[in-house]
């Protein structure tokens, strides 16, 4: 089973590597730089920032608010990341109003507000219990 998985995996990697190197229009150097950039950006920028913010919450938030605040932090971070390209709007096309028809910055704030409101309610409910 494990041998079969490993062999299939290596074969797929080989096929992908072939495409990276030899497919029409492939730009292996640019693609490798991009891959490295997203990997470093995720592992050494996004995650340390999230872990650092989590540590601050754990250190300074009152005990009953800790868990809801950590949860709200994680949700906020993930939602903000996937919303970012739409908030920045670099892909907007002037003559096509049906593409990206919403106010993404405002809507992101609405979602974040709802998440932190829910976290606040959770902390208060926890206090009463």
């Amino acid at each position, binding site marked *: 089973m494990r041998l079969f998985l*490993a062999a299939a995996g290596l074969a797929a990697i080989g096929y992908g*590597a072939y495409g990276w190197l030899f*497919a029409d229009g492939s*730009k292996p150097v640019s693609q490798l730089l991009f891959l490295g950039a997203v990997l470093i950006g995720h592992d050494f920028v996004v995650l340390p920032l999230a872990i650092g913010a989590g540590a601050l919450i754990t250190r300074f938030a009152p005990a009953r608010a800790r868990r809801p605040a950590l949860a709200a932090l994680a949700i906020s971070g993930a939602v903000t990341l*996937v919303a970012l390209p*739409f908030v920045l709007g670099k892909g907007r096309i002037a003559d096509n109003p049906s593409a990206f028809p919403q106010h993404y910055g405002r809507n992101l704030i609405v979602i974040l507000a709802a998440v932190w409101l829910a976290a606040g309610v959770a902390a208060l409910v926890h206090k009463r219990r």
Partner: protein
Amino acid sequence: MVRRSSGLTARLGLMLGAAFGICFLTGVLSHYIQHPPGWFRWPSRPVQLYRITQGVHVATGLACFPLLTAKVWSVYPKLFARPPVRGVLHGLERLSIALLSGAALFELVTGLLNIAYWYGAMPFGFIGAHYWTAWLAIGALLLHVAVKLPVARQPVPAPDKAGRRSVLVLAAVTVGVITLAFLGQTVRPLRRVALLAPRLPDVGPQGLPVNKTASAAGVTRVDDGYRLTVVGPDARHALTLADLDQLPQYTVSLPISCVEGWSAGAEWTGVRVADLLKMVGGNGRVRVDSLQRTPGYGSSILEPGQARDPLTLLALRVGGEPLHLDHGYPCRLIAPNRPGALQTKWVSGLTVMST
């Protein structure tokens, strides 16, 4: 309280592996439909199939963002383990994990940039890079499962189970929030809460989104000189818009299903492609040409079966009105179970191909 454990990592890995498997299968399928290898056949039924597979592809990809970050977080201290490499085998394993995370992030980020049209951030062609890197990611994933299977099968100690549960619940809630924020782009009842959806299924000319506008296609106006040429082995016809209006009209309810994961259903009225093909003979594949002047999806191929499907129309109207120029006036192709990019607009000709 929240804590890292191998049991948590294994469970997150299972969720992420399943999600990547779904993304890989639906993605390769979509790629083959649009760039078919010789052996590949795509049926015209079920009508909504591509709408579903591609909607699932994009929704699952978006759901992978928090899962991937949680997975890497769950093993984060190992990234800084000392010594960094404990021999050849360990070095190879770390290399394969770097390939897995790198290729996985590459897929998620390029996919997101593509649905946001942010091509300036990608100094390479999206389609080829996203396709070939998918093979790297799935290959590295299979290899990773092969290496880690014994660890994943170990029983989980009781204190770890409680910590695992809170992280998994949090991951599920995060996936839920992201999914709700986007899914309304293809599931119409969720449209009101789809606060981040790049398209809304009812926003656009005639209540329908547009991907490529007429001006982006270099089509400025279509005048009385318009002729639809229909060419086959037995005959060649040049039809005016009035000629098309004289032919039997049919109304079908079919979706525009975009490769970017949005979709919208509509009522299309027009001429059956099969009726036009009967006028010129032949039973092969059909090339659909367009007035479009800019490169990219300016023509498409209909497989023999799909070309003669009773639901496949050259639509003249949508929702009872003549097509808006951005929807392909004077006529557009609309066929069942077909990616939107291949529903050619501003159709100028149908040619029955010899092979």
